[in-house]
């Protein structure tokens, strides 16, 4: 019951943190890997600074999905943190947070740690119990593929 509802993916990549970080902020690179087939990135916008926008226009088998956000932290080559909203969610105004950390491993590898924490959707309805429901990062919907 104490499972942490944050999605975590960690991967050691065959490149330096500088190279991996560059992949995350280069629209052409993102087009290649952020939208694995069969979905396809039609357009990618990255404004590489805190407060800058990030946006993916994704063609998901014929339907257009917009993923939009804003950089909360931009610390090359160590950390990226940005908001993440999705036009396909039942509430597209829900904002989730993606945190990506890059740590060197040996001379030319990088441990990339992605954490996607999720704000609650329209889930918490038991006001009558009088509990202050904390924004416990529980429910929201991510891209459908």
């Amino acid at each position, binding site marked *: *019951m*104490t*499972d942490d*509802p944050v*999605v*975590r*993916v960690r*991967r050691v*990549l*065959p*490149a330096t943190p500088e*190279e*991996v970080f560059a*992949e995350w902020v280069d629209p052409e*690179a993102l087009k*290649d*890997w*952020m939208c*694995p087939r069969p979905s396809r990135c039609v357009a990618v916008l990255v404004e590489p600074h805190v407060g800058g926008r990030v946006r993916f226009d994704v063609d998901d088998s014929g339907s257009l999905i917009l993923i939009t956000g804003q950089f909360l932290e931009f610390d090359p080559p160590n950390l990226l943190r940005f908001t993440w909203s999705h036009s396909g969610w*039942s509430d597209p105004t829900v904002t989730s947070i993606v945190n990506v950390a890059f740590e060197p491993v040996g001379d030319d590898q990088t441990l*990339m740690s*992605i954490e*996607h924490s*999720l704000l*609650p*959707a*329209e*889930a*918490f*309805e*038991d006001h*009558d*119990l009088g*509990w202050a*429901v*904390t924004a*416990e990062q*529980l*429910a929201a*919907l*991510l*891209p*459908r*593929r």
Partner: protein
Amino acid sequence: MVEDSVLDRAYAALADPTRRHLLETLRRGNARITDLAAPLPMTFAGVSRHVGVLESAGLVRREVRGREHWLSLQPDGLGAARQWMDEQAEFWSTRADALSERLRSKKGSAL
């Protein structure tokens, strides 16, 4: 894709410390509402309402034996919630794989 309403109920049910405590207690074995209420600073009715939320989320099953209501954990009641989390993790691992593959082929072509 897991159905939204199922997830809403499961995660809403979990988003409360008392209900998580009740689920943890039931992991030790079936119990009556009276048993569950005893150690809590809460009335029988209060606990009963929490149990109702857990029941409607499919996390707990209630069996009436005579005048007693026995509660048990529903096997795999969290299955839908777990599946949903797995799907989200898969979203990012697919991308991490694609990035890894791209970096590898970049390195390869640079040689």
